[in-house]
């Protein structure tokens, strides 16, 4: 029984759609509201103890442009599963998985830093790689390669220091 079958046996959300994947890992898409419940079921009832990565893909100009992906790993069953969802709008948001896996805090912070996706319930969701106070999200498709005023914060600092 693979991860997907175990998830369906434990109770999958109605919004679940099976997705094709190139690496033969099970890949499912669920509605943004069902993500947290799905992850919780996978952790508690299906043996997926660790989260390998949390990342996002900008599928612009699609309707719900951000695809967020959680890759889970089961050491017990030697299995993995990928859960994806789509969010959009001006302030895309999804519920944080930090209370399921505390280690997801940094990955969610990076996701916020690069794509501007808000993870609700994350304590300390702030810039990770970009400087605090930066206005833009570099991995969004509309962000130019050489940046938007990359030296603005430095110049402000330079003016204010005594």
């Amino acid at each position, binding site marked *: 029984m693979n991860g997907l079958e175990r998830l369906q046996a434990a109770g999958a959300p109605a919004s679940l759609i099976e997705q094709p994947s190139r690496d033969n890992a099970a890949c499912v898409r669920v509605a943004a509201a069902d993500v947290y419940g799905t992850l919780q079921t996978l952790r508690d009832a299906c043996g997926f103890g660790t989260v390998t990565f949390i990342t996002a893909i900008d599928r612009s100009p699609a309707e719900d442009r951000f695809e967020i992906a959680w890759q889970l790993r089961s050491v017990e069953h030697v299995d993995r599963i990928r859960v994806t969802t789509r969010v959009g709008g001006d302030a895309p948001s999804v519920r944080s998985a930090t209370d399921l896996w505390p280690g997801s805090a940094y990955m969610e912070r990076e996701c916020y830093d690069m794509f501007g996706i808000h993870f609700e319930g994350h304590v300390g969701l702030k810039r990770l790689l970009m400087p605090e106070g930066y206005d833009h999200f*570099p991995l969004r498709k509309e962000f*130019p390669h*050489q940046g938007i005023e990359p030296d603005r914060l430095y110049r402000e600092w330079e003016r204010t220091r005594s």
Partner: protein
Amino acid sequence: MGSLVPADTGSSQEAGFFASRLDALVNWGRKNSLWPMPLGLSCCGIELMAMIGPKFDIARFGAEAARFSPRQCDLLIVAGTLTWKMAEATRTIYDQMPDPKWVIAMGVCSSSGGMYDSYSVVQGVDMILPVDVYVPGCPPRPDAVIDALIKLQRKIERESPTRRLAEMSSKPLEAGTNTFNMAPNDAIKTHRIGTFLEGDEGDDA
């Protein structure tokens, strides 16, 4: 540099004094005891460590005393990719170094941003600091950085500390600093490697 002049002291012991220009003496001391502040920001830092180590041994040029406090250094070696997030810290380190101070931009990243023509990388440390010598290479071999060190020594030889001191003492210290701060833009103009190399050739001839 100067000449040893025997002094008529009337003593049986051989005594003498050394006549030189003050500029030449000060410059000689400065160029042979550069204390580097190693700012290893990426892979160039590894080559910098090799340079300080026994095989390339910059102790031969008096620059082996790497100090990890900017207060004790007079040569900032920016070795690697400088990001805008790191720029504030780098400028602070430069400001904390006591005057006189020199800067080597080691590698293409710190010279021009290199292959990182990107939103996060400073396109050359001369955007935030005055640079004395630029070293190309990705990363440059330790030999290349030693060459830069020797070029910097030649540059120091031609400085005029006494004139500089006179200029500095005629204007008040900037508030809140313990150094004579140069405006970075003016410094960049005078320290460009182009003008330096022109002068360099003239000096050798």
